[in-house]
């Protein structure tokens, strides 16, 4: 133990470099710590290791071509980014989309929110040694990713929304698939709850660690689950309801201590709320198109061939039978999911294949130098992302591409407060605190 001479020993602080690549950090960020024994006395956070010039690329792409870039912002909940961006553009252009399209966006966003929280909890539990939790969470996430895959054609690079609507209608059997996936997700969340919530080892690591007061959180511009864990029930979905969030009933879970444990609890509770929202959406969603009999369907290639030989008279009476990636973009669907505004929305496939007007319209939408042209102006739209208020500020100068796309990344704001959270704590606390921030480098560095 303490020898009498120990207090006369000279102590020196030393620097420790964590990251940019560190096994206990998910995401590329560099934290330089100044330590006195195991206490952190100073901390410097360096970011930018995953900067991909999203905003610069946004200025050189057409309005719709920016959507795939937004997938790469927060890559564990890409659908929310898709929705946020197109909402800003629609606000600028003054477009409103049909109800069914709005419900589809909400369903997609909420499924994404669950995957986001699952990843966050799973990864941060794994970093504390709870590898089982990680596997459970990833298993549930996989089921949801498969659902997203069915809906959008991709697990992560979704690009589901379009200016003025969404890409495609619900695939057949989606609702049942969703119900089955939620059963699985609930099971996994319950298992995790049993494993972690009253687990002494877990609680010792997270309870009372990484504390922040609500005043400090607000001063740093923090939103989302992180702010709610401090006791401020600010949720963009509730505060400024967009799409159809004012028609669904959901709770905004809040914590009280603003520590890592509360953030874990808030995220756990939010997943249940997201599932409730999706279930209500399925009850409320307006009827979509009826299913046509196979006699009324025609293969897409057949339509193109017939159109080439001039046999277009009866063409528009048929429904195109499309391949999997285009499924749900037929005329029947488009009128339910996209705004009836030809200036923003691509024509349904039947018209593009079967009529000269549709074909011209299609080219008008996709050719360089053509496409959507929102009027001069600027708009800011915010949605509730996985980590907080995800805002897009778009400026148009009347061209076919944005003049400026600014993304307000929620986790960057949390990262500005990271030194505050870490200083005074132990080195070992960096890992759970950083995990609960849920930093997504793709979103933070853009």
């Amino acid at each position, binding site marked *: 133990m303490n020898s009498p001479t120990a207090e006369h020993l000279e102590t020196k602080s030393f620097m420790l470099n964590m990251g940019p690549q560190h096994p206990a950090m998910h995401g590329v960020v560099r934290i330089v710590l100044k330590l006195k024994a195991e206490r952190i006395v100073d901390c410097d956070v360096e970011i*930018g290791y995953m900067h991909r010039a999203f905003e610069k690329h946004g200025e050189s792409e057409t309005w719709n071509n920016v959507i795939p870039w937004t997938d790469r912002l927060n890559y564990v909940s890409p659908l929310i980014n898709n929705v946020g961006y197109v909402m800003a553009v629609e606000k600028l252009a003054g477009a409103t989309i049909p109800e069914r399209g709005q419900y589809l966006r909400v369903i997609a966003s909420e499924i994404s929110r669950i995957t986001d929280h699952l990843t966050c909890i799973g990864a941060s539990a794994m970093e504390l040694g709870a590898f089982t939790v990680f596997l459970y969470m990833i298993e549930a996430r996989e089921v949801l990713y498969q659902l997203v895959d069915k809906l959008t054609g991709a697990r992560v690079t979704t690009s589901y929304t379009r200016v003025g609507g969404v890409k495609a209608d619900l695939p057949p059997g989606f609702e049942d698939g969703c119900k089955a996936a939620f059963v699985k997700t609930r099971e996994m969340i319950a298992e995790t709850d049993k494993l972690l919530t009253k687990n002494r080892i877990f609680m010792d690591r997270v309870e009372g660690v990484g504390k922040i007061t609500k005043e400090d959180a*607000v001063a740093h511009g923090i939103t989302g689950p992180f702010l709610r864990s401090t006791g401020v029930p600010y949720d963009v979905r*509730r505060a400024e309801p967009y799409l159809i969030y004012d028609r669904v009933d959901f709770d905004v879970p809040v914590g009280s201590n603003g520590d890592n444990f509360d953030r874990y609890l808030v995220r756990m509770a939010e997943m249940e709320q997201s599932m409730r929202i999706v279930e209500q959406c399925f009850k409320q969603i307006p009827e979509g198109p009826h299913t046509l009999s196979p006699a009324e369907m025609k293969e897409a290639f057949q339509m193109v061939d017939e159109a080439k030989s001039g046999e277009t008279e009866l063409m528009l009476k048929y429904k195109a039978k499309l391949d999997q990636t285009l499924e749900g973009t037929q005329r029947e669907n488009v009128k339910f999911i996209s705004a009836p505004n030809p200036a923003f929305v691509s024509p349904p496939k039947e018209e593009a294949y079967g009529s000269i007007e549709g074909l011209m319209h299609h080219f008008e939408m996709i050719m360089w*130098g053509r496409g959507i042209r929102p009027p001069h102006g600027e708009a800011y739209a915010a949605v509730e992302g996985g980590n907080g208020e995800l805002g897009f*500020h778009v400026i148009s100068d009347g061209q076919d591409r944005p*003049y400026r796309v600014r993304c*307000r990344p929620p986790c960057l704001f949390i*990262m500005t407060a990271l030194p505050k959270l870490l200083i005074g704590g132990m080195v070992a606390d960096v890992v759970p605190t950083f995990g609960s921030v849920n930093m997504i480098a793709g979103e933070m560095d853009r």
Partner: protein
Amino acid sequence: VKPDSVHDALETLRDKHGFNLLVDLHGVDWSTASPPSKLVVTGEGSVGGASFVPPGKVGAPAPEATSATSVTVRVGLTELMQKESSSVDADEAEIGPAALHGRKARFEVVYRLLSLDLESGMPKARCAVKTRVAEGEAVPRSAMDLFGNADWFEREVWDMFGVPFADRPGMKRLLMYEEFVGHPLRKDYAIHKRQPLIGPKSGMRPDNPSLNQPYPAVKPDDE
């Protein structure tokens, strides 16, 4: 507002009007914006939010306030602006779409604020404070002492646009590395430009398949 009075405006908004959350701070380079052929006014600001409307402004109508609280805040702001009329330059205080053309200074710095009620979690109002600075000019006062997160975002504005904040010592880039040459979000920074650390030295690689057509695009009337 004029660059000199940004700090005062932010301080007044924060202390007297309860705008406690800095939602965003970013820049815009207006150097290549084309003048609008027809002025279309779209509602700036957000749902249920108020916008920052200077008095005696022509061009853009006042945005509609959607709730009683935001009306009061807007009135409060207008009064604030009248009181401090010395800080308002009629030309420079333009806001919204009308301001897209005929501006004097190249860069705009936007501070987006939110007034949040900590108990109910409901936002009372939103507003944006905008200022314009010319190339090489600095925003005189940093907002670091008002909002904890302004530090990083001012660094980002410097990094991306090269707009400095005069009273900040040792401005560091936020996203790019220190050896980076230029400021990438300036409109005169070509998207295909190469950096000396990365090369090639000629600076161009026109055959790169990942690059889209360079700015400006082919205009439809070029046929």
